[in-house]
């Protein structure tokens, strides 16, 4: 089947598109008056919070809106042809052939019962009718292109035999098999680890150039969009609010929402005490509860009653050249360069005495090959290896690492859900490493609490918010009777800034951020002194992240809590932590104060992590380091240094020491330690990964 050739105009033209979903109760408009153009070879980013309609646009382009979704207005033109008028057969030809889509969850887009090779070969065989041999050659070529090792073996394997990063590469390879003119990427790296994400993004960029493919890149991550796209379209509540060249929008934004979005993400330079993040007030409106006029009106600092809420707000051209547009009535009146109204500066809390001390903590799991009869070969998973650190009162210690680095195991051992294999955990000088939670006294249990990652999973869906907090109070022995506990529960809701009426709501009636606040209230029910926060904001939208982070910080300041903040997001770690601990495959590879860790010399892994984090600031220059390969399995760790398989400094260490011995812990300066064989002289040559450009630094 042929492709549409000889077309020089824009690949994709979406004009005033409106999409609605129809439920039993009402019509829910998901996208309204949305326009975008994608030129050949261009990458356009679609940015917005969850629920803003960005994925719906992608599905609309693929004409895959399901039974109850319908395009109610506007047009989508692909290479000049109106997709509305295409028949089912024509659409089928275009999908996968001219337009390819890459989804968030790689495992869900691959058929688990089919070998990779077969799945890849299907694409040209169906769309172009090529022979099996030719299809195989093409598959081999593309798999080589996406930089997978040993392509022939890859083609023979099943999806579950590959890691997440490899699977996503295969999905990309599949999308490229038919050399499409448009590639739609729907949050392609959200499910991946940061270093893997960096590699995949790099790959997508290179391939886009090589094949000349246009891209529609959907993401909630502004930094990622900055790295990949030429133009950007910011969406809010179903509408495009600002559209333009990426540099222009980042440096010269003309819509209050874009501005608020940038102020709520931790860019280098933000600081929890001197320059705190500014959260966007209010909540994202539900699709059927949108306000009249400007959708962002109720949350906007520049809102003017009677004007902003009067009429539908059209897109306005900023410079008159059609290159930069904004959906704001007042963009000419707002002083965009005005400095952020200084939020109250908070004094840095005094770090107190040592509360928690870990000494050479080890946790090994034994995995028996045969569970029923206990026989067979036993394998040991070394989840934590010689973990030592101290945490003090009122201190935030960030624990950084990718999935599989052992941070969850460490949290489990600390909470008492598992007992340690070796080493010590001292809580106020008492050993607790061998006391499982059922043998701990109420005080100890109440002292060490946890805030979980997934807000949609952290509350029991069948119990009201109030009764869940009251149950925690009950267990911790607080309050003599139900009336007192209820009073205390209402106070806790005040503490996390939720209205008291929420006590009788069910969790499903709350938004993600509100659920996370309830989770925090529950953790602090027993007056916790050590709180383990396991990626508490990573699943939340950017604008909510800032508010929840600030709440945690505020409670910490008032209650003098020790916060163990587990995260892989180095921007937020840099923003809020006092000290940082970097973990890799069960080892602590670097530990030190935030300033020490974020400045050279680094551990090679820290260096790579820093480089991998996308930063949404055009003034930042980043050194480009891409880690090859994936994290080794903890079941079968490499000999010697755990990081040696991916380390780019390995050849600077003489005698192949990295492959033979686990490096010793070295003190670089007071309180800054790394686990590396590199000589001091080599470490001294390291350059900072993140540099602010000159003009910004001079300010």
């Amino acid at each position, binding site marked *: 089947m042929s492709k549409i050739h000889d077309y020089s105009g824009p690949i994709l033209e979406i004009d005033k598109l409106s999409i609605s979903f129809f439920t039993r109760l009402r019509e829910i408009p998901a996208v309204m008056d949305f326009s975008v153009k994608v030129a050949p070879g261009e990458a356009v980013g679609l940015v917005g919070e969850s629920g803003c309609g960005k994925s719906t646009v992608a599905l609309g382009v693929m004409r895959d809106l399901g039974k109850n979704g319908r395009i109610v207005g506007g047009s989508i033109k692909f290479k000049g042809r109106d997709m509305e008028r295409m028949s089912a057969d024509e659409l089928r030809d275009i999908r996968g052939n001219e337009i390819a889509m890459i989804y968030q969850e790689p495992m869900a887009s691959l058929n688990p019962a089919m070998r990779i090779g077969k799945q890849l070969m299907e694409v040209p065989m169906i769309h172009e009718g090529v022979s099996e041999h030719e299809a195989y050659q093409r598959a081999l070529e593309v798999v080589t292109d996406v930089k997978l090792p040993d392509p022939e073996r890859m083609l023979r394997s099943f999806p579950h035999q590959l890691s997440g990063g490899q699977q996503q590469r295969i999905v990309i390879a599949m999308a490229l098999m038919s050399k499409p003119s448009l590639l739609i990427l729907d949050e392609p790296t959200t499910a991946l680890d940061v270093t893997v994400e960096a590699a995949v993004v790099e790959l997508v960029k290179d391939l886009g150039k090589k094949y000349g493919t246009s891209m529609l890149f959907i993401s909630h991550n502004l930094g990622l969009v900055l790295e990949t796209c030429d133009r950007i379209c910011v969406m809010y509540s179903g509408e495009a609010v600002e559209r333009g060249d990426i540099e222009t929008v980042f440096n010269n934004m003309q819509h209050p929402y874009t501005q608020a979005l940038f102020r709520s993400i931790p860019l280098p330079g933000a600081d929890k005490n001197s320059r705190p993040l500014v959260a966007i007030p209010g909540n994202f409106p539900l699709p059927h509860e949108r306000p009249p006029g400007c959708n962002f009106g109720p949350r906007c600092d520049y809102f003017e009653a009677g004007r902003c809420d009067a009429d539908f707000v059209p897109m306005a051209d900023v410079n008159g050249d059609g290159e930069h547009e904004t959906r704001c009535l007042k963009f000419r009146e707002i002083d965009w360069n005005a400095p952020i109204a200084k939020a109250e500066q908070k004094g840095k809390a005094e770090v107190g005495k040592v509360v928690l001390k870990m000494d050479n903590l080890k946790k090994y799991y034994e995995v028996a090959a045969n569970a029923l009869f206990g026989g067979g070969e036993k394998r040991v998973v070394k989840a934590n290896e010689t973990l030592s650190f101290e945490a003090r009162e009122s201190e935030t210690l960030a624990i950084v690492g990718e999935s599989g680095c052992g941070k969850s195991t460490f949290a489990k051992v600390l909470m008492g859900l598992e007992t340690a294999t070796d080493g010590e955990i001292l809580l106020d000088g008492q050993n607790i490493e061998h006391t499982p939670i*059922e043998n701990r006294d*109420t005080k100890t249990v109440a002292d060490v609490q946890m805030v979980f990652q997934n807000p949609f999973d952290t509350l029991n869906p069948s119990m009201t918010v109030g009764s869940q907090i009251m149950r925690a109070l009950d267990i911790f022995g607080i309050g003599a009777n139900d009336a007192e506990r209820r009073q205390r529960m209402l106070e806790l809701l005040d503490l996390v800034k939720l209205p008291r009426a929420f006590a009788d709501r069910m969790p499903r009636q709350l938004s993600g951020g509100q659920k996370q606040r309830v989770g925090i209230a529950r953790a602090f029910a027993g007056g916790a002194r050590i709180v383990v926060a396991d990626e508490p904001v990573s699943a939340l939208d950017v604008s909510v992240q800032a508010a929840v982070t600030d709440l945690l910080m505020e409670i910490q300041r008032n209650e003098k809590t020790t916060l163990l903040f587990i995260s892989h997001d180095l921007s937020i770690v840099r923003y809020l932590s006092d000290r940082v601990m970097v973990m890799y495959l069960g080892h602590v590879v670097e530990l030190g104060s935030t300033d020490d860790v974020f400045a050279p010399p680094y551990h090679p892994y820290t260096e790579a992590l820093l480089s991998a984090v996308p930063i949404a600031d055009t003034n930042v220059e980043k050194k480009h380091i891409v880690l090859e390969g994936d994290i080794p399995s903890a079941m079968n760790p490499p000999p010697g240094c755990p990081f040696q398989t991916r380390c780019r400094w390995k050849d600077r260490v003489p005698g192949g020491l990295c492959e033979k011995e686990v490096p010793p812990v070295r003190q670089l300066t007071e309180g800054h330690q790394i686990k590396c064989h590199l000589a001091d002289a080599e470490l001294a040559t390291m350059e900072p990964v993140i540099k602010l450009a000159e003009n910004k630094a001079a300010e």
Partner: protein
Amino acid sequence: MEPLTWFGAYGSSFAPLLMVLITLAVVCGLCAALLAFTNSSPATSFSLFNGIAVLFLLLVGFSYVYSGLSGAEGGGMAPSKLGWFLATIAGLGVFAAMLARFMGTFFDDPAAFAGTIFKWAIYGVGAVVALWLLVTLVWQNAAHKEWLAGLDPAAMPAAEEISQNEAVSRLHSRGIMASIFVRFTPVWISLIVLFAVSIQFKRRLGLYGKLFDSVIGMIGFGLVMFWVFTAVYVGLFDWIATHPPLEQVSGMKNKVPGTPLRGATAEQYPFYLLGGDPLARDIFSRMVEGSVIVIRIAPMATLFAFMVGITLGLPAGYYGGKLDTFLSFLANLILAFPVILLFYLLVTPEIVLTGLPQYMALVLFLFPLIFFGVLINSRFRTQPQKNYMWLAIVLIPLFLVYASAINDPGANSKIRFWPLDFFDIPGGILVVFVSVVFVNSPTVFRIVRGLALDIQTRDYVAAAQTRGERPWYIMLWEILPNARGPLIVDFCLRIGYTTILLGTLGFFGLGLPPESPDWGSTINEGRKLLSIYPHPALPPAFALLTLVLGLNLLADGLREESLKD
């Protein structure tokens, strides 16, 4: 006395229209299905061809009905030729009108067009039936009044004879179907009240309320509640049945539906509405009495099976390891054993004599006590006073019931230690009950275990663990409530299985006494002369079918609605 006709005095006037509509529905339904099957998006030329095919099929259908039924003379409900002719004209007129209205649709997409006609034909059938029922019930006294008017005023018969004539002539006007409909009056009223109230407040009733958003769910719920209300009114008030289930009337052996009783007394219902069985008992009464047994045993047995399955499945899924391996092995062992063979074993007199069913009851009936005890204890562990109060309130009555249930003062009973024996379960029912619980619980166990395995990975379970909750609290208060969706659906389905299982047991004559009116036993009795007298076996089979169908539809509706939000 004349026997009753199926549709009474007015049936013949409605029959032609009904026949036309049914033919229309069947023909159009077949057309729609065939056309949809052959091509879902027809090209124009092909669709013209299809349209002509539909017309042709319709003509064939009509001529078939006309020729087939206009020749059927005689009998109680033969339609007059004129009525026939008019009905056919009306049917074709309706068709022509719809054709004109949907002309465009007809040639674009004949399948959809046939589907539309099918739908309207079905509505039409409903409307005609409702109209017939209305007419029949409104004018049911007309024949009696006519008879009264025709009497000689000088020689008026005794008041008793008049009232008897009134009763009989009313039944004659109604016919069998309308008489059965009238017998079920309390059930209809209850259903209407229940549905009206539920639909009124459906937004406030959670999942139960959402059921009334789904047609499938409503139909299923209606069918189930029909039999539940029937069982309640028959069991408690003895309302619906026309005769006692064991009453035999001479001369009524194997009589067809609508046969009058010979020498019926004034108190007796003068007809066997659905005929008599081989022992001259009323089939209709036995059918409605059978519902009492089914409704009494099936949900209770399922509930017990759930208690057993939950109490064992939760720890198996939550702890895993050796406990799980052991319990799953046990469950598989029971599941692998042929069910019918197991039943035969359990009801064999020698085995009953050893007291095995009683010992099994001793164990199986203990599970609800364990379940509720652990449920309350885990919840109020930290507040001893409340804990003891609730434990006492729930466990003492439960224990009394338990002790009474397992104790039996009979001669062969093995367990008779408890002095406060409030009630005894008849031996047959106990055996059936125990066997049904025994074979159902392993399946429930496996479902609960799977759900527990899934839900225990959630963060709220981890949150409960990190605040030091005990395992049983986590299992019963954190995991179980969140597994309720699939469990409720399975509960409905499982009542259906249990109903069928009871039927199977009755069919094989296991457990329940042979004279029991339960549906399985009555089907088995009717089966013996099925080729000569099909009518004794059909009503209980139909009853069983509607109840199980209702339960399945209800489960479907619940599943569908619980997925929506």
